[in-house]
């Protein structure tokens, strides 16, 4: 095939703008979609075509598969880019797109399905020779759970087999506590996921969250774009990400990237994807999950590699090979990304929808801002709280942080509470700057 000539961007906000820009740079037309709340939004203005797909709640617009397919049909789009969130990791949507004769700018439905199930993904990683956190098979009764926990060694985490997004996880430090927690964990899993199956996993002390960015094409090429450190989190939500991961031994860096590539090859992966790992204090790494989509934090990998990930996604979807080989890639400098959210860190990160009355973006060398917003826009209560992503690159990590400090001083948002003041404190924090930190470090700071 010659590749898509017109891409339906089945998303909103900054990622919609990002995809439209990549389409235009590739000489491809873009079709935007919008809900009632997003009628006058920036991505609607940037695209060649725009289609109204429904009411403001996402369930009535951005999650409406039929409305999206109809938007593609009516505008004669030949491909669909799902972005992240919404339907991006929904294998039924991927299949519906393909069944409608459209190209999905993403992985095959089978890969989305395989990696979407926690237990299957774990088993698949093991089969690919990728280490997983020591754990048990599904347990149904207490005796089996206690026997498994004795074998793994306390502390353990009781996890729901059907779980995801950090939900349904209970830490346990003794056999007595396990007896207390297991029935409640099973009931919670049954209630939340319709499946009470639990399993146990060793609780790693102070782990880091490190993930590897991948690209894979139809020609047997699988490449990694180095790793990112996403350990600065609150309630398992990432707030600050950087690439490359600080303080990782070269050998660990090499082995973790090789493991991610091995898994992608094992599952016949295609397009952009990310393999997430937990890394312990001894730099042993364990598979956590695979994200079968472009991610929020992809720009830090772009900054250190010089690769336009969305442009590569479009190439791959067109059946072309990735535009570079692994050995061509050089990791240059360091980059950090700060998520600027409409949340009030001083009030328990309470959401803060409303009108953005002032919006002055920072600039300067190595400074990039990805946003779907302009001054006077309303931050809608219907979607997530992200206002913008500030990405700063430097010749080294110290310069990246210094540029971020400077950029945050310039970045002015008025009308809604936001996380800029928190980020200003974070990028000046000695512990973070000397790095690395672990996944509960930020929560300990906030206490």
């Amino acid at each position: 095939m010659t590749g898509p000539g017109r891409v339906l961007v089945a998303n909103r906000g900054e990622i919609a703008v990002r995809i439209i820009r990549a389409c235009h740079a590739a000489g491809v037309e873009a079709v935007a979609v919008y809900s009632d709340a997003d009628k006058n939004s920036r991505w609607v203005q940037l695209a060649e075509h725009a289609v109204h797909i429904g009411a403001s709640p996402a369930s009535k617009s951005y999650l409406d598969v039929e409305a999206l397919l109809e938007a593609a049909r009516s505008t004669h789009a030949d491909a669909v880019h799902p972005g992240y969130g919404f339907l991006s990791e929904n294998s039924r949507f991927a299949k519906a797109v393909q069944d409608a004769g459209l190209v999905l700018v993403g992985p095959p439905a089978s890969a989305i399905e395989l990696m979407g199930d926690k237990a299957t993904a774990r088993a698949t990683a093991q089969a690919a020779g990728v280490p997983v956190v020591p754990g048990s098979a599904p347990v149904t009764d207490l005796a089996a759970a206690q026997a498994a926990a004795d074998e793994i060694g306390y502390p353990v985490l009781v996890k729901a087999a059907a779980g995801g997004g950090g939900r349904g996880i209970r830490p346990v430090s003794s056999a007595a506590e396990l007896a207390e927690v297991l029935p409640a964990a099973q009931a919670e899993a049954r209630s939340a996921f319709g499946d009470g199956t639990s399993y146990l996993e060793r609780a790693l002390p102070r782990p880091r969250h490190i993930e590897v960015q991948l690209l894979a094409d139809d020609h047997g090429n699988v490449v990694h774009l180095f790793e990112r450190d996403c350990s600065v989190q609150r309630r398992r939500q990432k707030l600050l990400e950087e690439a490359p991961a600080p303080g990782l031994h070269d050998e660990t860096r090499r082995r973790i990237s090789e493991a991610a590539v091995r898994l992608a090859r094992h599952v016949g992966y295609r397009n952009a994807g990310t393999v997430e790992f937990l890394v312990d204090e001894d730099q042993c790494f364990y598979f956590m999950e695979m994200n079968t989509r472009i991610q929020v934090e992809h720009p830090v990998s772009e900054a250190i590699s010089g690769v336009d990930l969305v442009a590569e996604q479009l190439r791959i979807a067109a059946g072309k090979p990735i535009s570079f080989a692994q050995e061509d890639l050089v990791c240059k400098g360091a980059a950090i990304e700060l998520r600027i959210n409409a949340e009030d860190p001083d009030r328990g990160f309470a959401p803060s929808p409303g009108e953005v009355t002032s919006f002055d973006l920072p600039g300067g060398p190595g400074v990039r801002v990805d946003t779907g917003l302009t001054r006077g826009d309303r931050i809608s209560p219907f979607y997530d709280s992200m206002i913008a992503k500030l990405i700063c690159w430097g010749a080294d990590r110290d310069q990246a942080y210094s540029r971020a400090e400077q950029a945050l001083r310039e970045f002015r948002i008025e009308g809604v509470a936001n996380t800029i003041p928190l980020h200003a404190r974070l990028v000046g924090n000695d512990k973070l700057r000397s790095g690395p930190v672990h996944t509960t470090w930020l929560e300990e700071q906030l206490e």
Partner: protein
Amino acid sequence: MSTVNATLPGVFYRRPSPEQDPFVEVGAAVQEGQTIALIEVMKTFSEVKAEQAGTIGRFLLDEGDEVEAGQGVVEVVSP
């Protein structure tokens, strides 16, 4: 009779999750402080609670409807 109003704009839900039963049905007795609905604002869920004991008269919104801050969501009939 009293009307419980939304304190936040967002999306109104009568169920804790799509697969589960509603928190309460019309005609059911509720206690003061009992959760009767959820409002989702920016992917964060806030509980709508009964301000006094009584019986659920009627819901003024359907599952998944948009709601404005201050808008009535449910009528509670006093005992």
